[in-house]
């Protein structure tokens, strides 16, 4: 197998196609909101990008919390009726979500693809990269995505609708999201990268958003998927992952205890893929169903991606050997290595 034929490469191609479609897809689906695919897409396809194909589900959630639920409470109108659009949005999200489950993160999300491209750039530049984050760091980061979902997507917008906090916090998450800045810049729109001095809330939010965007860019060069680890979309996916048709399944063997390559291969540092010995469904909360653990599992049939119970990709010793060789070649091929080789060639000739 050459370096260009494996699941990781196929995934990159799917990610690239998804990026192009989601960021520039208005030429296909149409310009107006009414033209978009669902209005509740399970990946960070940003509504601020005026050329996009769909809207991320987090934007309607925030606005419905503020303008429907919050206002219903303040006005004393029917809370149940105010929840109808929220339920409709959730239903739309779930209709799409069940099809690919958390693979919307690992295969479709534009921001995930951007971070992976940056990490690839870091590797090609020969930067020393963090293989895996420490257990302590991973454990500290894990609750952040739940807090982001609860506070930024639901809490602050609701409090804004209730009148307890500034109206500028209706889009509390969107105003921080790096995908908003990334996708708008990708279509040549610079209006979303700004410092806003209109009031203290907007000032704090704009500074945090810009800083976070820069922080993620630099960190992605050396650390795998830094923003995905704290993304509220990951938490939303985690909450409904049992409904998805695509799953990561493990048939543990005693050899698993000594191995652990799967956990090292995981870009989200999910050590439980290695340590879990009883559960079959190992689609953990942080999993993005990228399939890298399956690729790097050296044992036949231990890990597999199954769709509605049918295996679509299963680990094997043969695939592992070829994949490891391909990875080694890929890792060795860096600009630094190329430069060294170029400088060494004339010297060797002279000698």
């Amino acid at each position, binding site marked *: 197998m050459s370096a260009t034929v494996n699941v990781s490469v196929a995934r990159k191609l799917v990610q690239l196609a998804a990026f192009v479609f989601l960021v520039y897809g208005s030429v296909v689906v*149409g310009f107006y909101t009414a033209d978009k695919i669902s209005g509740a897409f399970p990946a960070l396809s940003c509504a601020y990008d005026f050329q996009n194909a769909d809207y991320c589900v987090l934007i309607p959630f925030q606005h419905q919390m503020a303008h429907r639920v919050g206002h219903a409470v303040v006005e004393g109108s029917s809370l149940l009726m105010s929840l109808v659009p929220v339920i409709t949005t959730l239903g739309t999200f779930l209709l799409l979500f069940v099809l690919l489950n958390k693979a919307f993160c690992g295969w479709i999300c534009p921001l995930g693809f951007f971070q992976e491209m940056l990490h690839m750039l870091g590797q090609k530049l020969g930067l020393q*990269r963090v293989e895996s984050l420490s257990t302590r760091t991973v454990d500290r980061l894990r609750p952040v995505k739940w807090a982001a979902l609860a506070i930024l997507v639901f809490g602050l917008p609701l409090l804004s609708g209730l009148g307890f906090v500034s109206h500028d916090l209706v889009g509390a998450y969107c105003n921080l999201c790096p995908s908003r800045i990334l996708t708008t810049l990708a279509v040549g729109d610079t209006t979303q990268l700004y410092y806003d001095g209109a009031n203290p809330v907007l000032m704090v939010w704009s500074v945090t958003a810009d800083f976070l965007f820069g922080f993620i860019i630099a960190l992605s060069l050396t650390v795998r998927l830094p923003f995905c680890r704290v993304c509220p979309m990951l938490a939303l996916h985690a909450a409904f992952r049992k409904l998805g048709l695509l799953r990561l399944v493990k048939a543990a063997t005693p050899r698993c205890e000594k191995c652990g390559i799967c956990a090292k291969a995981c870009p989200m540092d999910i050590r439980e893929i290695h340590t879990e010995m009883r559960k079959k469904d190992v689609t953990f909360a942080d999993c993005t169903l990228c399939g890298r653990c399956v690729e790097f599992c050296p044992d036949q049939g231990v890990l597999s991606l199954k769709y509605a119970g049918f295996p679509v990709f299963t680990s094997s010793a043969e695939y592992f050997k070829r994949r490891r060789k391909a990875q080694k070649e890929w890792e060795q091929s860096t600009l630094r290595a190329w430069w060294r080789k170029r400088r060494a060639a004339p010297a060797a000739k002279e000698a």
Partner: protein
Amino acid sequence: MRYRTFTPALLALLLSSACLAAPESSGFDAGARQPKPSGHAAHQARGAKTLMLENAEGASIRLWKPDLTSAPLAAEHGHITLRPTGLGNYHAIVVEQDWGTAKDVLIRYEYMNGKPSGRSPAELTAAVKTEFEIVPDPLPREHARYIAGRPAAFLVRHRGHPAGGVPVTLTTANGTTLQATTDARGRVRFELPDDFAEVKPGRPNNRPAEMQVRSDFQAEGRAYTTILSAQYHVNPRHWQSFGGGVFIALLGMVAGGLTGRRLLKGNGKAEK
């Protein structure tokens, strides 16, 4: 017998919001007689909207809904009241004054909240609503708006066909007039003037102003004058800084690089 009583200058006032020049004290917003909203009005305006209509005695007024059905509207005491139609998205108000040898038309697109119609605003703009028509190309996307200093394009059509080489004038309530001519596809593009005299930091602190896109056309022995009216808003770049944003992002990059190095040292697990 009716006479063409209004001049083009008066026609320009036919359908406009009560806050034409955006006075702080008017207490109206979004072309509608509603209390000043605390936030972005487009999300909250679920009730009726009232639009001013002057010098339209005997005019035919129709409301086009997002599903392309239309119904007559009546003007009362110089105002049109747009009651919720149950359908969400853009509606078009078309006021036609037929003088026999001449026809004056005023068109305005208003966003109304309601149940999703399932129809694209592209269908509403594509529908032929009058003989000589000025159509936003495109309309500001739902919940978006025309912004000063940014481009806006319009299509000029006669009986649904592009009208090329037709002069078009854009006039704002803040006193700017721009002129352009449609291309072969009937399209004309303006950069909306950034002409607000007083700008305060923050979007809710600035009222929109009215603008009118007007074109005159002669065909089949008739003179047409059509005006598209809309609101445009202050450009947030007056209180937002792109350079500041870039600088902060660069600081973030430095912090990200340092954090990466720290993680590398702390972990002791690195790959080259």
